């Protein structure tokens, strides 16, 4: 018997399904469900369109900020390293190297709420409640002296806040302000009044990365070889550790994404906001060269703390409870399995 009738039936069903939702010329795709649109349609416009119901104060936000934001942005939103400064900078926009912060530069409050809610904290985006985002937004405004410490920010009060640099922007006017860059004929001869002289050289500054990739690779291979040589005698005395389960290691690599913003591992790993973590499992605490530890960590190191899987696990579960005063502002890993996995992953780096 021919397959033809079956095919017809199949096509008819498909057409029916596709045909129910769609009016477009190609009849492709399907109608988005309201729940789906709600899940992704999070952006907030300057007039407050899209703001969720909720509220918070700087007071509520202070601890949250310290836990989730301060590692990069500083306890007072003053910025750490090259991470963005969120507060201050008023009156600097017309100077060299202006300090552009939420307070000094951002024209719309909606942008602050929208960005924090959708994209922060770095490495754990979209994990905070709407109220928490109001509280954090209030804290950032407070640190810019735009709101009071106990003033409530909510979807109701949102439009009352005035951003200091709201009038600091103009729409692209290049075609008028730079109309002289359009020319009938570019100059070809005697284009300058005086003989041309060099006025500045890049080599004076000397900020260009020097090494070629090949040289870097060779250098790090050499360094690795040296490391191996130096560590070789120690290895003999070390207790052989069981090889970690590859599946667990792989899972741990995924978990480590939460840590990557501050910690580096692997070849050439360097200290960042947090210390590089090569060889951390089984090694003494507070001992990574060149990293400035908190007093709490230095004290623990002096007392002989070693990052055994057990100690490290306890630290990672609730860093600030385990060690009061640690600089690590990570909130902690709730899942026991995740803790095991990330330790297994870390144990693969010598």
């Amino acid at each position, binding site marked *: 018997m021919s397959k033809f009738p079956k095919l017809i039936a199949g096509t008819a069903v498909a057409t029916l399904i596709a045909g129910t939702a769609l009016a477009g010329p190609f009849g492709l795709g399907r109608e988005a469900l309201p729940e789906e649109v709600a899940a992704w349609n999070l952006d907030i416009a300057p007039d407050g369109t899209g703001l969720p119901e909720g509220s918070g104060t700087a007071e509520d936000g202070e601890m949250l900020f310290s836990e989730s934001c301060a590692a990069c942005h500083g306890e007072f939103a003053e910025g750490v390293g090259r991470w963005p400064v969120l507060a201050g900078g008023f009156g600097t926009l017309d100077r060299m190297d202006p300090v552009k912060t939420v307070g000094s530069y951002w024209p719309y409050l909606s*942008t602050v709420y929208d960005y924090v809610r959708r994209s922060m904290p770095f490495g754990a985006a979209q994990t905070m409640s709407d109220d928490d985002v109001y509280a954090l937004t209030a804290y950032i405004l407070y640190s810019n002296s735009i709101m009071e410490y106990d003033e409530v920010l909510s979807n109701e009060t949102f439009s009352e806040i005035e951003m200091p640099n709201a009038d600091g922007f103009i729409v692209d006017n290049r075609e008028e302000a730079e109309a002289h860059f359009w020319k009938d004929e*570019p100059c070809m001869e005697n284009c300058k009044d005086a003989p041309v002289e060099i006025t500045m050289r890049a080599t004076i500054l000397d900020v260009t990365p020097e090494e070629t990739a090949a040289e870097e690779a060779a250098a790090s291979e050499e360094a690795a070889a040296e490391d191996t040589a130096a560590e070789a005698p120690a290895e003999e005395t070390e207790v052989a550790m069981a090889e970690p389960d590859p599946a667990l290691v792989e899972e741990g690599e995924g978990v480590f994404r939460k840590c990557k913003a501050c910690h580096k591992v692997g070849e050439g790993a360097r200290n960042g906001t947090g210390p590089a973590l090569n060889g951390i499992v089984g090694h003494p605490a507070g001992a990574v060269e060149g990293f400035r530890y908190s007093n709490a960590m230095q004290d623990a190191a002096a007392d002989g703390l070693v990052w055994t899987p057990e100690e490290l696990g306890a630290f990672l579960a609730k860093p600030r409870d385990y060690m009061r005063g640690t600089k690590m502002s990570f909130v902690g890993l709730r899942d026991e399995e995740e803790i095991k996995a990330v330790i297994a992953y870390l144990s693969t780096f010598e």
Partner: protein
Amino acid sequence: MTRENKVDDTPERKGPSRRGFLTGTAASGAALLAATAARAQTAPDPLITEVQPWASGLGEGVDATPYGLPIKYEDDVVRRNVDWLTADTISSINFTPIHALDGTITPQGCAFERHHSGAIELRKEDYRLMINGLVDTPLVFTYADLERFPREIHTYFLECAANTGMEWAGAQLNGAQFTHGMIHNMEYSGVPLRTLLEEAGLDTAGDLSDKWIYVEGADASSNGRSIPMEKALDDVLVAFKANGEALRKEHGYPVRLVVPGWEGNMWVKWLRRIEVTDQPIESREETSKYTDTLADGISRKWTWVMDAKSVITSPSPQMPITHGAGPLVITGMAWSGRGAITRVDVSLDGGMTWQPARLGKAGDSKALTRFYLDIDWDGSEMLIQSRATDETGYVQPTKDALREVRGENSIYHNNCIQTWHVKENGEAENVEVS
């Protein structure tokens, strides 16, 4: 290399690195001498007279590399990062090795990357594209759905608005890769955004002249930008192939937006949502960032189009002249977000006099154009510059002319004329001139 080849010039030898070059000035002086008198070969070249291993033994079979990489002798032609620019490589940028490329197409593997929350791995099967907002029917497309719409191919440049941004206050980075490498040029296959918007229906939006779209990516940064409907319906492409193959993950696999001629930040990667709105969203990336602060502290916003620009890629600090006086190919690239490049002029004396360069082929709209100037170099110092003109008559300005209008704090949209100081020994340096 000169014609006076030595036996120890094995194929393992790399092209000169900048450091190697700087320390080997004396050696190249000798080479220069040799080159001028090189026509007369005194001893036979063993590369010719002796049977070489590759001419006798066998090479690698097929399938040795199922997906090929450049040969090892080219392994210094890679993207590179400037450490001090950003806090972390996850939210950072690197640079295309434009100094070592020719032609116009940028291979994906060395095309610069810019991420806000790292390059994610998103499977085609897990990919969804939503169109919502002021449309007749909010729709969800799978990747397979996108492949069923009529497709177009177009070649466009993508330039980060911050390209050359470190050079506003003065000559800073010594290499075309670092001063101008936040750019690539690829041939995209994709579906016009117009087709997808029409599929969702725009009757609900009413008068389209004051409407916008807001586009957003699937990564944790949720990078989103507002684009006027006029542009959205003009030439914006929802692309899934670049240079004939799937996008690389670092460029938004499986689907990215292509916004021809406009700043790279708008080319949203891992595109997941297109919302039709009646106002711009003014997201972080279009207020806090990608706005241009002028000398008086007022900032321009919505500076989307990339002005005409060009740069000489060789000779340049990473590409010194190693052959001494005589025939020299000066080459570089030019582009404009307003249309096709119609003309490139080159100056050898810091902008006092100019001569027209030869375009490799006629310029395509909003795509890179390659230019050449073939000269007989006399071995004396040069201050080399290139100057692009586009089809609208816009002529690439000098750095001083730009600074006169914009000050030094703009960060973005620095399309000034670049000067390389080529010395008698062939070495080149990034300089500013009067």
